[in-house]
């Protein structure tokens, strides 16, 4: 890790931040398709808001800003938020939008109340907790980067190992279920992986905006490739680049990092949506006749996972 940081043509603190944010973006980009291709992007939003109470609770338990414990707390409450959304839908018959709205509210209000109650209790060392809302990479040290890299690498390894299962599941959950992969296992696995990506990013990007770092790279990559392997790789690259560039830029301009990273990644996605060679808006406008004549051109280009569009209905 050290050689990578020192080899960058940046001052040491910036280099640490750049490498750390790149790792975060890489993991988020690689895992984002798990949410996007399955029409679960807003589910990711509830989870990313769900990290906030965990961060604060982790702080309360540790009594100090102990990063691993705070991230553990974030992971637990994010997973709890995911469970709550599913529970509301399955057991109480809530509609998905209501379930997400309520869970998002529950998570966020809990986080805010804890945060403000703690702030007013005058606990020293808590002053930086509000950074977890919009992200603050400054103050990241090499050990944090190492933690991110190790946890992220585990998640990526899991994705690679289960790639075939996940591909089948993302493409056709029914088929996967019949083929012997229980749906709940796939759900659980992808939820846990998403939680990992969100938790790693919450400090740098912030709980409010973390979902965009999952979604934007995946949307950009989706425009450029139809193969899942290429999509995950490309998405990881977009995420990593936006993460590193955004964190450094934000540091120099003294802005919160989350919005900068999110806007960078979103710009890439917007450019891809507009100018992608085959699926881009421009490409479609240029061949209106073909588009009008053939229905197949709209949602399902050959070989593309058709699940992407299904969430909209």
């Amino acid at each position, binding site marked *: 890790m050290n050689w990578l940081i020192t080899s960058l043509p940046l001052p040491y603190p910036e280099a640490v931040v750049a490498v750390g944010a790149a790792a975060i973006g890489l993991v988020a980009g690689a895992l984002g398709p798990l949410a996007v291709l399955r029409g679960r992007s807003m589910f990711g*939003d509830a989870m990313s808001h769900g990290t906030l109470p965990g961060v604060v609770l982790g702080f309360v338990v540790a009594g100090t800003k102990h990063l691993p414990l705070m991230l553990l707390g974030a992971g637990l409450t994010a997973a709890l938020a995911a469970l709550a959304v599913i529970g509301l839908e399955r057991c109480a018959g809530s509609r998905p939008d209501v379930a997400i709205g309520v869970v998002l509210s529950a998570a966020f209000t809990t986080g805010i109340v804890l945060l403000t109650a703690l702030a007013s209790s005058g606990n020293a060392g808590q002053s930086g907790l509000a950074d977890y809302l919009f992200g603050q990479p400054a103050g990241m040290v090499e050990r944090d980067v190492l933690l991110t890299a190790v946890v992220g690498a585990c998640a990526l390894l899991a994705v690679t190992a289960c790639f075939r299962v996940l591909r089948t599941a993302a493409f056709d959950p029914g088929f996967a279920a019949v083929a012997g992969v229980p749906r709940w296992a796939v759900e659980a696995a992808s939820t846990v992986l998403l939680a990992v990506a969100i938790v790693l990013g919450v400090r740098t990007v912030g709980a409010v905006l973390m979902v965009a770092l999952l979604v934007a790279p995946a949307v950009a990559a989706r425009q450029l490739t139809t193969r899942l392997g290429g999509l995950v790789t490309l998405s990881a690259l977009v995420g990593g680049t936006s993460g590193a560039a955004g964190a450094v830029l934000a540091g120099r301009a003294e802005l919160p990092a989350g919005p900068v990273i999110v806007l960078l990644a979103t710009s890439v996605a917007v450019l891809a949506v507009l100018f992608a060679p085959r699926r881009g808006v421009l490409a479609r406008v240029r061949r209106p006749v073909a588009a009008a004549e053939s229905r197949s051109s709209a949602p399902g280009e050959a070989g593309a996972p058709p699940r992407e569009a299904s969430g909209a209905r």
Partner: protein
Amino acid sequence: MTADDLVIVLTAGLLATACALLGTFLVLRGRALLPDAVSHAVLPGIVGVYLVTGGRNTIAMLLGATLFGVVCVLAFQALRRSGIVASDAAIALVFPALFSLGVLGVSRYTSGVHLDLDSTIYGELTFAPLRTLDLGGTQVPRSLLITGAAAVVVLAVVVLFWRPLVLTSFDPEFAEATGVRVRLVERGLLVLVAAVAVTAFESIGAILVVTFFVVPAATAQLVARRLDSMLGIAVAVGWVSALLGQRAAVRLDSSVAGSIGLAAVGLFALALVFAPRRGLWRRWRGGRRRGTPARRPGPTAGSATRGG
């Protein structure tokens, strides 16, 4: 409870009234996340108006930011209808980006001058009693007037347009067939939601807007058997949470808006367990005996759409 506390409770209660009335219809129409989208889109509008006018002129802010939010949501909906971005990914892409723009604007250009990141998140309900307007010789808190006006306008709209609202929420095809312009009702609702979201921003910040809209309505949905009672319960939940939340915030010295939201979530949890017909307790105890009407268990967890 001091007079200042009372002003805070009243302001929050009036705001919750406006939000809960609209939220009830949104929840029933499957548009529960629309306020979330709108409140995200409204923030850059608020910053923009602030930059242009150099102040927080209420009317300019209300008109400008509402317009901006509505345009964003409409443009997004048109884009989605065109099939270019046909997924909830687009929602999770566009609205956080707009919000990012707003957050950057807030922290770059306006920090320290009545508009900063803290107020974006926590709102300024605590300061509600401090900013007053001279109204015929008496000093009246400004926010009380604004939220009161919002509540009155929303209530009037709901009463006046009751039938189109109910028809289009319950059975849009039937409504259209009987000559109701469903699209128009939808647009009107969107404008109203955006205006209330702008109003709410000052008091409760941008992120908690969705809480005020959705949680009381979702609570009421668990309890109510009829639409009129659902609206009444939603408003009541709003007021009770305003009172409970304010008291809790005083005890804990925490964010007032956050505490009110949390109180509403607590009431939702109570209703979820103990609601007479739909509560989990009732389901577990009576579900087996009495074969409750089947609901689709929602296989598409989390595939919700906001803004659609």
